[in-house]
């Protein structure tokens, strides 16, 4: 029950921020919840981290009361759109069948998540032990980071501490549901993003394919692997959604939310930082090209979140990533390339996602230079490629043991690009006229 309350609190906090900004007006409630979760987590992390810097001890009251005021302000000043809060079930039987299948997969994942004790090595050595330590200290404790020699950013650790705080005890096994909810949010945001482009039924087919991808299920519910890779995938995917909306509408509201997501992604894992830099450079280029100089200030939102952590690393002399050391070893290129390509064809982990992704890429008539999302995807992939040229570990073994996790960060984006490529081929929704808005969106993405 306590875990459910934690999730509700996090969603509410994010929801208040979304409502205050005024983004996603008229969008379905479920979609808002999917985005609210990440914004809530990121905001609470920042808040708790600031409290630690100011030597304010964490407690439920001290954390939740400011958000309560924000919530009251939202309800007093803004009239919530009741239409967006309502939920109507579609009558399309095929669609309902697909929804049922997705529901069954999600139920299975949630069931698996809470069955066993915290299983992953990563959890013991890092995510959960740090969450426990900060909970006992009621603060972000740099001495603990030195004790465990941990170089990871603080979001997941603080999220675990927040969950324990709300629960009032160290509840290790059920806390795993907090991570499974990222999976649920990815599925929801993925569906609504695609629904606007390829229609409800086709979007649900791809959502089902995403939900049943074995490596995603493994990270969402089995947890014999890491805990932070799926959350990072979620934050990166949400960043891409809002980046695309900004590039399409040029609205500062989308730019603001994009900056929140991309800033928070740097607090999840260090791999979020290159993605942040690449995305912000693209946004900056786009703003200069469109002479939107005032909007450049909004980049400060994302940058300050990111710099906040980097600054703390230097102040507390925290350890830095052991994988990025020494010069680029270019002689590794063939081995690294072949080992990475092999992972794309690992059907046991990814089903046919990456094969379909590359087929979709080949089928495109023109690979437009303006297709920002593909550019982002491949630049991030290049970053991972170069990490394996730098790492002090033997690269082939390192790739076998870790590349599937890195690919998970960009898997929802890859799925989205694949679905956009194949979207036109699927059976269109029956009995519906072509939606001109959707056609424009589809053209802007596919071409």
């Amino acid at each position, binding site marked *: 029950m306590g875990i459910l309350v934690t999730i509700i609190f996090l969603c509410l906090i994010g929801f208040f921020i979304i409502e205050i900004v005024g983004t996603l007006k008229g969008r379905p409630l479920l979609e808002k919840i999917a985005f609210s979760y990440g914004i809530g987590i990121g905001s609470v992390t920042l808040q708790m981290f600031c409290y630690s810097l100011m030597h304010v001890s964490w407690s439920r009251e001290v954390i939740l009361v400011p958000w309560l005021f924000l919530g009251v302000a939202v309800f007093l000043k803004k009239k919530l759109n009741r239409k967006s809060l309502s939920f109507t079930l579609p009558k399309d039987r095929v669609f309902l069948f697909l929804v049922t299948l997705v529901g069954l997969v999600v139920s299975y994942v949630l069931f698996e998540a809470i*069955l*066993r*004790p915290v*299983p992953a090595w990563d959890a013991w050595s890092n995510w959960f032990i740090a969450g*426990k330590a900060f909970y*006992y200290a009621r603060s972000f404790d740099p001495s603990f980071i030195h004790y*465990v020699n941990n170089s990871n950013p603080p979001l997941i650790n603080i999220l675990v501490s927040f969950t324990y705080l709300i629960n009032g005890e160290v509840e290790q*096994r059920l806390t795993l549901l907090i991570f499974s909810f990222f999976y649920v949010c990815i599925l929801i945001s993925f569906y609504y993003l695609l629904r606007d482009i390829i229609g409800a039924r086709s979007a649900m087919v791809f959502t089902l394919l995403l939900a049943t991808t074995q490596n995603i299920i493994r990270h969402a519910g089995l947890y014999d692997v890491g805990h932070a890779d799926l959350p990072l995938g979620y934050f990166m995917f949400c960043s891409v959604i809002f980046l695309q909306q900004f590039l399409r509408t040029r609205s500062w509201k989308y730019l603001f939310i994009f900056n929140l997501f991309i800033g928070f992604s740097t607090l999840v894992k260090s791999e979020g930082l290159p993605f942040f830099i690449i995305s912000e450079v693209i946004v900056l280029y786009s703003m200069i090209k469109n002479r939107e100089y005032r909007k450049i200030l909004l980049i400060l939102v994302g940058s300050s979140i990111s710099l906040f952590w980097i600054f703390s690393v230097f102040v507390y002399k925290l350890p830095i990533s052991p994988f990025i050391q020494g010069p680029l070893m270019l002689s590794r290129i063939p081995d690294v390339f072949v080992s990475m390509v092999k992972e794309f064809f690992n059907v046991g982990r990814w089903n046919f996602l990456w094969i379909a992704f590359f087929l979709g890429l080949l089928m495109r008539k023109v690979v437009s230079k303006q297709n920002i999302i593909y550019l982002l995807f491949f630049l991030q992939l290049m970053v991972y490629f170069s990490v394996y040229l730098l790492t002090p570990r033997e690269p082939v073994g390192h790739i076998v043991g870790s590349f599937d996790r890195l690919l998970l960060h960009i898997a929802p984006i890859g799925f989205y690009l694949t679905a956009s490529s194949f979207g036109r081929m699927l059976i269109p929704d029956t009995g519906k006229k072509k939606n001109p808005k959707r056609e424009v969106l589809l053209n802007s993405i596919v071409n």
Partner: protein
Amino acid sequence: MTEDLVWLGLSEKQKMATYYKDGYFLAELADKTTKHADKTLIISDNGYYYYLTRYLIYPKKIYWVTTDQLATINPLHYSDIIVYPGKNIHGIEKGTYFIKEQFSFQNNKAFSGYLFIKQ
């Protein structure tokens, strides 16, 4: 799925014992042996025992070396030393500073090790 259902009937402790196996018993032993401010050293060639014990008994502090690194440490800096899985490691006793005990979990010789407690 049928295999999964077995987990439903187990208590929290039973789940941990079933899943972590000897790692859980080792953490229990370390927890019972050490006091809050103690510095316990685990000597093991398998990091699994160290990371799991460190996680389960936190805030008690645990340190780790492999048998290859034994020469780099001074055993007298630690209040307790656990050697697991059991290898008769010479040189830890340092005269009469430590009481040495052999232990095993669930009467299984495969799950045995040594515990050194500072006198």
